[in-house]
């Protein structure tokens, strides 16, 4: 530790001006990093409001004149309008939220609060699924859903959520439920409450933070999902927003960048609103559980 004797003075007794300078430098670094990171997003937003002929001539993030033509053109740019895609996306994401929160909280309650034979084994199995690449089950699942006649319906996208297929949320909720005082269940049990009543009347009401976090992430991830809709939805009237966007790039995108950008912006609006109103919850959710995205 002798190599830093010169620095002892610096770190030990930092002069106020030096501290101030460091702080300013950090803010400059962070601010420029923020600008660099947000610049593409702001440019996209600006491009969506530019008149068509200006889109590729400017790198600025403030349009010289504002126009919503791109939005009007883009909204009806495909055979089926984006209104339908939005409705489809909302239906799929909404049902997924309901299914995921219900099924995952039930499984998590069993793992966190109930005793039964084989519990540790099933819990280990659940953890294993967290690491499993979905490609390994993809083809048989596709065959199964095809035989059931579910291809080109929302069922392959929604039903797995009602079967708690995303173990990640179970894990998240187990962690939370374990933190709730066990005395609550025991007291209720003594009063003759069934496990179902304890789950419904005690555990769930106390767990609104984790349920809300799970609900928001389920919504966002389902909304963003591209692969599922890509393989299961083949008719344009059942497309989601993401699938609609992709079709847009294939068919008209090369000629109508304005419309494409406008619809891209619109597709991000629901996620952005969640970010705006629930960012604390999202960030805390990630910080405490180490979420993947």
């Amino acid at each position, binding site marked *: 530790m002798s190599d*830093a004797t010169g620095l002892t003075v610096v770190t030990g007794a930092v002069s106020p001006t030096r501290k101030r300078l460091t702080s300013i430098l950090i803010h400059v670094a*962070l601010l420029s990093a923020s600008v660099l990171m947000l610049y593409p997003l702001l440019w996209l937003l600006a491009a969506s409001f530019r008149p068509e002929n200006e889109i*590729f001539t400017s790198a600025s993030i403030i349009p010289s004149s504002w126009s919503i033509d791109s939005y009007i053109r883009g909204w009806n740019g495909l055979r089926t309008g984006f209104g339908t895609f939005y409705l489809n996306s909302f239906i799929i994401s909404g049902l997924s939220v309901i299914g995921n929160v219900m099924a995952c909280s*039930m*499984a998590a309650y069993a793992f966190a609060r109930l005793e039964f034979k084989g519990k540790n084994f099933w819990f280990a199995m659940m953890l294993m699924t967290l690491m499993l690449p979905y490609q390994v089950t993809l083809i048989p699942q596709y065959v199964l859903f095809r035989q059931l006649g579910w291809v080109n319906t929302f069922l392959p996208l929604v039903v797995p959520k*009602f*079967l708690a297929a995303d173990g990640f949320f179970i894990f998240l909720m187990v962690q939370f439920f374990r933190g709730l005082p066990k005395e609550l269940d025991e007291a209720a049990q003594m009063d003759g409450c069934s496990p179902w009543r304890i789950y419904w009347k005690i555990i769930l009401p106390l767990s609104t933070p984790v349920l809300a976090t799970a609900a928001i992430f389920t919504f966002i991830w389902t909304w963003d999902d591209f692969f599922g809709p890509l393989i299961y939805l083949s008719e344009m009237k059942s497309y989601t927003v993401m699938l609609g966007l992709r079709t847009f790039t294939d068919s008209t995108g090369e000629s109508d960048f304005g419309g494409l950008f406008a619809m891209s912006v619109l597709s*991000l609006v629901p996620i952005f609103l969640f970010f705006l109103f629930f960012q*604390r919850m999202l960030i805390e959710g990630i910080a405490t559980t*180490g979420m993947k995205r």
Partner: protein
Amino acid sequence: MTARSLQSGAPAGERAATTPSLWARIWHNDAPGYLFLLPWLIGFLGLTIGPMITSFYLSFTDFDLLTSPDWVGANNYIRMFSNDPKFWASMRVTMFFVVFSVPLKLAFALAVAMLLNRGIRGLPLYRALFYLPSLLGASVAIAILWRQIFASDGLINKLLAMVGIMGPSWISNPKTSLWTLIILSIWQFGSPMIIFLAGLRQIPQDMYEAASLDGASKWRQFVKITLPLLTPVVFFNAIIQTIEAFKSFTPAFIISGGTGNPINSTLFYTLYLYQEAFGFFRMGYASALAWVLLALVSVFTAVSFLTSKYWVHYDE
């Protein structure tokens, strides 16, 4: 426990509790747990284990979705390793992506987290701004934006033109196309950053105070205190991000229009698997590809966990 012993307070109940039939005991002890677990259990057996077994079987067949599968032995695997340049191309692309995107993303995340952890003003705002790309980044819209940014007449080249540089077409040049995807991945450093930040908060400040009194430089403090104490978080982030990188699909699909071009330079393994399964309906071959991916991810995870005791510092 308590409730059961209380309920069996009545003499009749007492007898039932001491000598119940096997079924009654199962019903009483295990049924509630399994009833709550039921949805997950159905999903696990029907959508995970069943399909896994089927997929393993299909990987030894020539299944094409329309006709019934014929057993071909290990032919799919043999062909993959000995006679399929596209398989090796996709393997190279995915490995390159993992090896460069994950460490760079984590290094960036840690660097910014450390800047943010110095008790600066406006922390919540910065944190939120840096997190936003992580939240939006998985979207098709961002992939579309990226394709435009790096196009020959795109945003990057427009900025370069301002300083008099003629930029290449980053997307259609096989030397740079994969890097555009790596940059997209690094851009989303927000969520590992938040996890790092939470980890940094756990490190007691007095350790740094003691170290700086002993005259340890900032760099030494970082190497000797921060990094060792942060290894569990580094480990966690590295595992999660690596598995995510292996599974990445949407950006490569959108940016290359589903082809993996130019000359297979963005042919992610997942994209190749998708093409084989749903483009050519070679479902048997695609199943074999999936099992090789699983083997790859498993080996990586196992090695990480086995070596973790040598470099991950767990206090307790």
